[in-house]
């Protein structure tokens, strides 16, 4: 069974309609005091969580919106916002 993803505009759709945009790493680091090393870490280093992670997706075959969801990487299923569990 393919992953299904909930687009905020279009509702739950087949995962093949979407493009993965990577882990949500929080806001871009401030320019002041930014070193090449810390910028490289922000861009390239991932947490690769075995469990629930927040990640970006784009509905490229639909409305084109970028948005975040929470996905359990062990089951490859979208989950409700897990704030209480983190």
């Amino acid at each position, binding site marked *: 069974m393919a992953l299904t993803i*909930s687009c905020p505009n279009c509702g739950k*759709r087949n995962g093949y309609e979407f493009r993965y945009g990577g882990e949500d790493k929080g806001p871009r680091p401030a320019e002041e005091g930014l070193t090449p090393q810390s910028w490289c870490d922000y861009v390239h280093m991932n947490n690769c969580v075995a469990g629930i992670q927040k990640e970006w997706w784009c509905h490229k075959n639909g409305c084109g919106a970028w948005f975040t969801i929470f996905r359990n990487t062990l089951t490859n299923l979208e989950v409700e916002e897990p704030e209480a569990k983190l």
Partner: protein
Amino acid sequence: MKEIQRQSPVQFKADAQKIAMRDNWPVVLEYSNEGRGPFVVDLTHKAKWDLQDKNLATHKPLGLDIPTLPGACAFQKSVLINRLNRTQCAIWHLLADAPALPGEPGYTDVTESTVLLALFGPNALAIAEKLTALDLMDPQKQTPFLLQGPFSHLPCQVVTLERGHGFDGGLLLTCSRGYARSMVHAILDAGAEFGLRPAGEQRFSAWASGLSGKPGSAQAPSVMHLVTTRENL
């Protein structure tokens, strides 16, 4: 200077009975042997505008209201307005010639970059269901409503304009112009078992003119999944 010629990418293998020139587009008004439906009509020549603004609520294109929810449509005064997302809507001039594009920022004329097809009549929605997994007959939505997603594997905007008995009804779909030939080929092939035939613009106008301005269309509660991530858009 020679006059420009506009050409639809859709060419049906059928005998055109009546052709009119409109804004340099050759428009087929009627084909021979159109049958009793279902019909597929090429509406690429219809003016299509795109409007983008971070605050769409401040706009009233042609004095008409823009639906507030993504997926909702308003068919008023011969113009169909589809809300695409938080910042964008599509404006299709289906039954009348379009005025000049408004001079204010945000408007783009996409008429020549997109193909627009109408599929309507008996079993029209059954034909569409052979080509897409989109729920064009969602009972929780009031027509007209917009779905954005793959139709014959191509990213499309699909508007269910009418839902009748069984699979009868009608829809409009638009996609990039370059996909027109393969899209029409797929639709005609899927509709062969139902007797789908090309029809002229007159057939579409007669059908759609009865739908314009139906009450309730502008406020259709068409999106059930406006989840909490809108601020991330």
